[in-house]
């Protein structure tokens, strides 16, 4: 210890002598430069200091909302949003935590989103504003579409498209399930027309994409078409993705007979490495030719998948699947959470988004199952309609649900691999649907 102390004192001397000696001399000339600053602060009594401090507490801000007060982004807030609105939103953040921790609802995103929501509802703090740290994250990755695409890259690197390659025609089930998106679009427009909701076409499109059951796609589209609704759309998308085991089974059972649910499918063929390598390139070229608007989404997805399947850049693939996607998830979650500020979330639109999102999921599931029934009629090989429900994506939850429902009827009927085909096709399907919507608006 003593040695250390001596070492430090010596070190300090080495630092201080030159600084003290030389620098002081060299600065003698401008010594009176900053003496003026001292006067700027004007004297306050301790009482007025305490009062001033009290006016900067959150308690004061929440219980004394003021007309015309502005949020971190410089927009005026209603007194409701300044007071009860914030309390409700803090409650909702806690609810999200509860669902994430106790119920296992997509915690990877709902925890950062919920926490971002908490931080977004702090009065007077500027966390989501222009120089606040979540505001900076928002600018760095949501405003310019970077974060959802990096997540999608990671999803591509984590996804094995083998089951789809083994039985390509199941991709049509993933197409049918996108009816959840477009059907809801019509419904949302109709209800807006009737005055029930108040959505523009762009809003309606951004909401409908919840039916695609893909978080990053929803965030990508919402940040482009309806940034004000981003928070509610993201929360709805991830919540319903987590609720797939609750939402889908009743619909699946209602639309199928026990015989249909017992249909066994042929074991899938082996897929060659070369096919897996070519797959992302094929999909991307198709996107280039048919739907360039989808190319950011499908480009990111296929890039991740190509890095995975190429087999020669294992370290990049692992980084995409782990550190990169984790870091981006943290940043994306917090940034999306910034849209849970009371003045953005506690608006009638949110109710509509939650309802329409649920409807979109249900329609998508139904459309997938019905398409399964149709394909089973016309196909040479038997197709179990349950796997159609997996077409909404929500990878891999929806495929597991299809498998589970199949095993309920017949415990020997393992549908998992068959359901993974439409499941991953659904990811591509909703990216295509997203591109269509972007190309329209």
């Amino acid at each position: 210890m003593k040695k250390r102390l001596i070492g430090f004192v010596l070190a300090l001397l080495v630092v201080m002598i030159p600084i003290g000696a030389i620098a002081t001399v060299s600065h003698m000339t401008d010594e009176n430069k900053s003496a003026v600053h001292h006067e700027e602060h004007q004297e306050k009594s301790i009482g007025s200091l305490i009062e001033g401090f009290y006016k900067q507490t959150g308690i004061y801000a929440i219980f004394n909302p003021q007309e015309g007060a502005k949020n971190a982004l410089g927009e005026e807030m209603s007194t409701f949003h300044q007071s009860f609105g914030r309390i409700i939103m803090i409650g909702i953040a806690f609810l999200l935590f509860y669902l994430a921790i106790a119920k296992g609802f997509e915690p990877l995103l709902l925890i950062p989103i919920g926490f971002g929501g908490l931080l977004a509802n702090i009065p007077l703090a500027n966390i989501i504003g222009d120089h606040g740290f979540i505001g900076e994250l928002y600018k760095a990755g949501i405003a310019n579409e970077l974060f959802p695409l990096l997540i999608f890259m990671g999803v591509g690197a984590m996804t094995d498209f083998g089951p789809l390659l083994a039985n390509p025609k199941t991709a049509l089930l993933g197409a049918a399930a996108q009816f959840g998106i477009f059907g809801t679009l019509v419904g949302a427009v109709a209800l807006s027309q009737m005055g029930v909701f108040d959505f523009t076409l762009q809003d309606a499109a951004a909401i409908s994409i919840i039916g695609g059951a893909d978080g990053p796609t929803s965030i990508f589209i919402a940040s482009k078409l309806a940034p004000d609704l981003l928070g509610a759309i993201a929360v709805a998308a991830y919540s319903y993705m987590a609720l797939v085991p609750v939402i889908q089974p009743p619909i699946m059972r209602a639309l199928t007979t026990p015989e249909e649910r017992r249909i066994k499918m042929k074991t899938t063929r082996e897929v060659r490495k070369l096919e897996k390598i070519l797959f992302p390139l094929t999909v991307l070229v198709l996107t280039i030719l048919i739907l360039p608007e989808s190319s950011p989404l499908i480009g990111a997805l296929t890039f991740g998948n190509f890095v995975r399947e190429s087999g020669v850049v294992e370290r990049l693939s692992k980084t995409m699947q782990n550190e990169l996607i984790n870091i981006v998830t943290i940043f994306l979650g917090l940034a999306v959470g910034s849209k849970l500020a009371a003045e953005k979330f506690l608006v009638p639109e949110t109710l509509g988004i939650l309802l329409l999102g649920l409807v979109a999921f249900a329609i998508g599931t139904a459309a997938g199952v019905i398409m399964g029934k149709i394909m089973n009629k016309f196909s040479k090989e038997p197709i179990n309609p349950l796997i159609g429900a997996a077409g909404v994506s929500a990878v891999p939850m929806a495929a597991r649900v299809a498998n589970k429902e199949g095993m309920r009827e017949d415990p020997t009927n393992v549908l998992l691999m068959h359901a993974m085909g439409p499941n991953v096709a659904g990811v591509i399907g909703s990216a295509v649907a997203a591109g269509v919507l972007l190309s329209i608006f």
Partner: protein
Amino acid sequence: MVLEALKYMVLGMGIVFLFLYLMVVILNWQHKLVEKYFPQKEEPSATPSKRDKLKKVAAITAAIAHMKKSN
């Protein structure tokens, strides 16, 4: 408005189906090409992993044997 949304629905579902249908066609065709021009060799990727597994099993067995002996 609703009429327009219906048109978008028809267009959208049409394109989604078109896209994925073309994908199905190309994938089937690609599968045939791969089978034709790169016929299945004795998969070499299976061997190393098997070998690895065998190595592990051998190593663990040896360790257990060693422990028993040292009892």
